[in-house]
């Protein structure tokens, strides 16, 4: 079941979606048990920005039919402290996972970064380039351009410009995390490929909203502190399948498919429409070991 992705040999095709598994917090909660049964073939960090972010005011969660709307707001300690504090801890974790696995195959660290301009992305990518512990970089482009206010990832021209700006600054694989909140996701994926991306990943969460209960007692207001949020979980699975299929049919570079994967059968569907890797996100909230079950299910199915 091992798989090749951007020149890397991975033990299986299942990784985590960015921002859905804090490996440092999980190691505190689960101890060495996490290392012995680490469920992901590569580990993707949460989104890192140049400056620290506190995240959105609560409430940050809303449970919807078969899914979850979150408005977390990308809290992170900023590039400098991520590099000095988290990267060494994550490297020590992946080293412990490698020792546990015993087959010498390591779990690569993929760092997810978000900027609000091409120049910011360039600075983030250069910092990742300088760190040997980081194997690949994922660009979160679901962010409004500081000047135009348009989501960088929803506009093929802006997206291609960002890729051209960062491509020459890194020899590491560059993955573009596409936003599903666009009219033509395949056109955006094409722009990422044209700009020099090594892979794309999708889907990010779908923009969604919930109103506070008991609105009759006052003016209607959004429940989430951030106003709107992103929908994930089983509810988005069929949308993810359609978008992954459309993108994989158009591109030559590999695709990481994700969105509502809860079982090996769901992962198989994404692989069948062209995904090379599959990410598990919200399902890890329901069971931190879920991705391991997905990977084992794929393995058993391929063993026949």
């Amino acid at each position, binding site marked *: 079941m091992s798989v090749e992705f951007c020149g890397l040999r991975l033990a299986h095709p299942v990784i985590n979606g960015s921002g859905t598994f804090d490996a*440092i917090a999980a190691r*505190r909660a*689960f101890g060495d048990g996490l290392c012995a*049964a680490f469920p992901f073939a590569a580990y993707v960090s949460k989104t890192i920005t140049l400056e620290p972010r506190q995240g959105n005011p609560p409430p940050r969660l809303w449970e919807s*039919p078969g899914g979850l709307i979150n408005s*977390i707001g990308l*809290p992170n300690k900023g590039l400098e402290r991520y590099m000095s504090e988290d990267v060494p801890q994550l490297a020590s974790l992946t080293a412990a996972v490698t020792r546990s696995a015993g087959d010498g195959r390591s779990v690569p660290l993929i760092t997810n970064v978000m900027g609000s301009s091409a120049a910011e992305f360039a600075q983030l990518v250069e910092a990742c380039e300088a760190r040997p512990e980081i194997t690949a970089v994922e660009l979160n482009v679901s962010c409004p351009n500081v000047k135009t206010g348009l989501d960088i990832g929803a506009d093929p021209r802006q997206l291609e410009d960002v890729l051209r700006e960062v491509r020459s600054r890194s020899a590491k694989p560059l993955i573009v995390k596409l936003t599903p909140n666009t009219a033509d996701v395949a056109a955006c994926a094409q722009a990422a490929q044209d700009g020099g991306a090594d892979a794309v990943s999708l889907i990010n969460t779908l923009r969604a909203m919930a109103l506070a209960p008991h609105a009759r007692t006052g003016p209607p207001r959004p429940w989430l502190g951030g106003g709107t949020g992103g929908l994930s979980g089983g509810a988005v699975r069929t949308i993810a399948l359609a978008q992954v299929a459309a993108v994989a049919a158009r591109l030559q570079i590999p695709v990481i498919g994700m969105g509502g994967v809860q079982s090996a059968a769901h992962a198989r569907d994404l692989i069948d429409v062209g995904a090379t890797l599959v990410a598990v996100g919200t399902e890890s909230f329901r*069971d931190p070991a879920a991705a391991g079950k997905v990977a084992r299910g794929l393995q058993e199915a391929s063993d026949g």
Partner: protein
Amino acid sequence: MSDSSAAIAPFGRRLLTVTGMHELGDVYRLLIAADDGPDPEPGQFAMLAAAERWGGGEDERPYLPRAFSIARRRPGESQFLLEDVGPGTRRLCELEEGDGLWALGPLGAGFRAPTAGRRAILVGGGVGIAPLAILQDTLESEPAVLLGFRDGPRCAGRELLPGAAVASDDGSAGHHGPVTDLLLAEVDRDRHATVYACGPSAMLEAVRAICATRGVPAQLALEAGMACGFGACFGCAVPRRGGGYLRVCVDGPVIDAAELERVDEHAGAPQ
């Protein structure tokens, strides 16, 4: 209570069996067969979900597991206190002996032992009395226990903590008024104490304010809607004194009152 306030959970949720569901007035005491998982520290919690029919209730929910304080640990058995306040808690309250239950835990940072010489005062409200029961079991010397309830039917939970003084909002049991009236009297009698509290956010805020103005250390077990329970989702954030947020699941659920400017209306959602 050991020096450490957190036991390490096995990685991954485990399928356990319900061994009992007992009505206790308007709340339920859920008993589940404990596996060979570690003994929880008082104040730690578990994420619970029914193994069958988790989903398909009101608004096609529940979807995510729900967080509950561990109320008591007996050899071979763990206890929880449930109140039906939404589609998740409703489904859990319907469980019967023999049903399967997914459990992840014990999780979070629990209560810390009182510093030398200070007596413990336990203050609980509603189903929030749960973690105080396991705390009472483990304290070295007998604490003062003060419990508040909305009305008579909800007071039945008092039997979990023997020897408790009770207050009720409607006057149907014990003191007629908030439990913080009892706390004020207790603290003013002797301030050399550590307060341990769990309950509704308004009660916790009143406890925090009373303790802050009198210089009495307090440990508050907070509640917040959370998706995961182990630091992954960042959904259970509460404002921290001086800026930023704490994650109730990994920085708490037991948080030193001095870390909070005030106890916010809880961060809400999944119930």
